[in-house]
């Protein structure tokens, strides 16, 4: 009987280690953002609706805001547009848009046709701004607190569930993960 104890023990240890590894492995395709808990990147980008103006992070200090990276070429952005409009109508937290690798005229047209959920939209033609936020696919949405810290990131089309379970509680000061 004691002959089996060592191999059995090693097997049990291995099973535990592998189980922990599987539980902690990231969802396929979704990578945790290193920005969480860190200051949001500072930005000063051209304003889509006002070519001489800028959209600046400095102007957003001291308040919650959502930073939504989108483009007219992105299917998921079309999907989430209705949710963004709902968030806008709720009037709780403003959405700042970053129009990523897009055509200004097409973007303006899109907002005119589908509705504009944004307080303001900045443009990123080179992709440089999006890289600062660690964006690797659109849409991506970040929640930034009044101290300028990124507290939540949503990868993919924003859903009403994400709004009610993750964003609204944080903005209202309730524990997140509850609806």
């Amino acid at each position, binding site marked *: 009987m004691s002959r089996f104890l*060592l*191999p059995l023990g*090693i097997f049990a240890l291995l099973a535990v*280690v592998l189980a922990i590894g599987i539980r902690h492995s990231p969802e396929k*395709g979704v*990578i*945790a*953002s*290193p*920005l969480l808990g860190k200051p949001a990147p500072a930005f000063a980008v051209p304003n889509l609706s006002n070519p001489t103006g800028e959209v600046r992070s400095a102007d957003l200090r001291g308040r919650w805001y959502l930073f939504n990276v989108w483009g007219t070429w992105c299917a998921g952005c079309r999907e989430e547009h209705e949710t963004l409009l709902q968030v806008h109508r709720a009037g709780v937290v403003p959405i700042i848009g970053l129009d990523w*690798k897009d055509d200004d005229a097409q973007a303006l047209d899109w907002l005119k046709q589908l509705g504009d959920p944004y307080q303001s939209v900045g443009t990123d033609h*080179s*992709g*440089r701004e999006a*890289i*600062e*936020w*660690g964006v*690797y*696919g659109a849409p991506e949405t970040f929640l930034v607190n009044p101290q300028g810290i990124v507290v939540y990131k949503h990868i993919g089309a924003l859903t009403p569930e994400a709004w009610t379970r993750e964003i609204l509680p944080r903005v209202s000061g309730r524990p997140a993960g509850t609806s």
Partner: protein
Amino acid sequence: MIVAAVAFVAARAFAVDPTELPDPALQARYLALTHELRCMQCQNESLADSPVGLAADLRREVRDQLLAGRSDDQIRAWMSARYGDFILFRPRYSLRNAWLWGAPGVLLLIGALVCWRVVRGRARLLPGDHEPLEEDGPN
């Protein structure tokens, strides 16, 4: 012959990324880094091999930083700060990763220990070993 080989390799790289830095030393570092960094959109391709826009943007970033005189480590750190360690094909050695790097060695040692014990046990069963296994035998 060597020139032909180099030209062949360079020609293959040219297909996706035509970037050519003025200084050959910088170009070598550029190629090394863009092969070492992951294309986050495709995830199993390197920046060097990926045709997507994000890869081109990140390659341009590597190029600009090399021209600005940054070191390889600084560039890797810059990328990881924004995209996480996942952007590095070879994870950097750190306390958190220590178990990842050490586990194969530890498992190998355990395996070797088990092997040794089994072989030692088997050795006692070899025929031609005239010494009795137990003290008390038929004799």
